[in-house]
């Protein structure tokens, strides 16, 4: 299994080659992301990534993506500071247009990325032989699922509900 250091080193070599390639074809920069209401941890560019990937990851077309971003934001806020730093690195990596294009293999900016392209990225990183890519996939999987299925809005589709008799007796 490749360590993070090996992975980053490979990334640096690859990065140099990509800079040369990029001289001819710089990947499209993400347009300035619009702010989403109610976020305290996620930056607008992070929220853009969450909202682009959530429908693909969750397999739900009709999804209130801003609500998912708020759920993700809340989930991250409860994590220890060391874990929050790792998640910062994850979003910074994915938000970098070179990394998006050449590591994640997603051509257009996240907001315009097609479902097929995003799904291919997720599947590749899920199966990758690099532990870092596996853990980014699992991190996104974890955060976005927690962000949606932690919300009662998701329950009806699952046939899940809290026991009504008890809820009425809670103080």
């Amino acid at each position, binding site marked *: *299994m490749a360590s993070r250091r090996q992975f980053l080193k490979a990334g640096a070599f690859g990065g140099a080659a990509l800079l040369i390639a990029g001289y001819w074809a710089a990947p499209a920069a993400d347009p300035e992301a619009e702010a989403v209401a109610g976020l305290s941890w996620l930056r607008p560019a992070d929220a853009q990534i969450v909202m682009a990937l959530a429908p*693909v*990851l*969750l*397999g*739900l077309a009709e999804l209130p993506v801003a609500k998912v971003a708020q*759920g993700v934001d*809340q*989930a991250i*806020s*409860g*994590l*220890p*500071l*060391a*874990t929050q730093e790792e998640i910062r690195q994850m979003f910074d990596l994915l938000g970098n247009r070179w990394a998006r294009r050449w590591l994640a293999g997603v051509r257009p900016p996240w907001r315009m990325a097609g479902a097929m392209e995003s*799904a291919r990225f*997720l599947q590749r990183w*899920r*199966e990758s032989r690099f*532990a870092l890519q*596996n*853990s980014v996939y*699992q991190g996104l*999987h*974890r955060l976005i*699922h*927690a962000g*949606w*299925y*932690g*919300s*009662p809005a*998701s*329950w009806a*589709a*699952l*046939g*899940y509900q*809290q*026991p009504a*008799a*008890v*809820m009425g*007796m*809670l*103080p």
Partner: protein
Amino acid sequence: MSGKIPDLIRQGLASGWKAMDGAAQRNDLFLSADVAVIGSGAGGGIAAEALSLAGLDVLLLEEGGLHSSSDFRLLEAKAYPELYQESASRQTLDKAITILQGRAVGGSTVVNWTSSFRTPPDTLLWWQENHGLPGLSVEAMRPWFEQAERRLGIGPWLAEPNGNNLVLERGCLALGLRHARIPRNVRGCWNLGYCGMGCPTNAKQSMLVTCIPSALSRGARLLSRARVDRLAADPAGKSISAIEGSFLGADGNTPSGRRFMVRARHVVLAAGAIGTPAILLRSGLADASGQTGRRTFLHPVTLSAALMPERIEPYNGAPQSVYSDHYMHTQPLDGALGFKLEVPPIHPLLASVTFPGFGSEQASLLRQLPHLHATLALMRDGFHPDSRGGEVRLRSDGSPVLDYPLNDVIWDGARRSWLAMAELQFAAGARLAMPLHEAARPASSWRQARAMIEGLPLRALQARLVSAHVMGGMAMGGDPSLSVVDEWGGHWTWRNLTVLDGSIFPTSIGANPQLSVYAFALRGADHLARALARG
């Protein structure tokens, strides 16, 4: 039934308990006590009551917050950040195993699934013969188990198992596997199924509603949202002179800037098998044997999901009521890893983050939640010569992380357990079964499942592994050069330091550990109270 459920903790606070919230402290605090107990879970909670009953002035220090039944709203998104270490997302260093561990007044007892097993006789015998602990026979331990069982309402669960547990029972019957019902620590349980989010009816006999209120009623003090940073040893290196720590803010995460210092005649460490060694490592007080934080065990858990034709509503009803130890006894104790079969409750958030897939495949599985069953296999680590557990390390900010490398012995157990669970699920009538692994696909027959499981790659971040049982790291033993504490939890180096939590177990337990922690903590606290009475 009508009316509101009473909140024992809020009533107690109104009656004048000396409970202080660290987040509310505006000044640094200096305290003293006969005994300072660090951690209020199964070990610290039950010890606090025993020591208070012995007439000692007890101060209980807890990193988590004081939450009570009024706060328990049967909501995962609320419960995990409030009641669990790292929002129920604590992971081993390589992120291969997710660890569910409580962090609140009452510790993991507030959120566990109430399964209450005595330490298995073969585990006790192993400790007697291999760890220099001849006093720990089944007979010698019996009174401590009985005392804990009486205190906490532990007994047979007489209600019908829920649908999820019935699948396990039916599978065992069909295959002729030995199985039984799980004793639970409840009184007047409503059979709801939300144990993991804090019991809203106070039926679960956790430390929060039993021993901690009893200690507080006897004058013990409780300081919550108080994180112990380090212990200071006296210059002669014979005893612990002070406890130093930080108060946490209302988010339970960020230090508020206010600090505390405690001087106590005796210190009890009960911060759990990751927290306890971490405090000593942060303090530069690792023991002479070099064993502090080593041989930490997890009962690594594999999972297998199944779709049942009938509606089983795996979120409703007592979460764990049936188990099978069949695969604990198919090989020698120190041979290929044995595993215990149980089921987990299935609620949307935890299920969705644990099930490996994504996209429409994942969504269509989750849409069948009322028909979803999961079996779990907890592997007995620490007996096989190559099963040496993990090691607690410190991150640069001083927070602990468990390095638990996965090796061939674990992977062999994982594969056998996936096979056993899929076979059992089809025997119970499953339509589809699937081990929780990134490369697994739902199989529609036992034959198909077997072929798929035989081909699964065995590596970290592909298999989904979890754990809810952290044990070891401060092993008790008969020889100070091989162990950290004696059989009563007394530290070999520091005379006024006793460890009373799951960290003292020299191997994993081989069963859900809460009753083992209670019994050993009661035994150690009794020994300590007698020693302190002698002066």
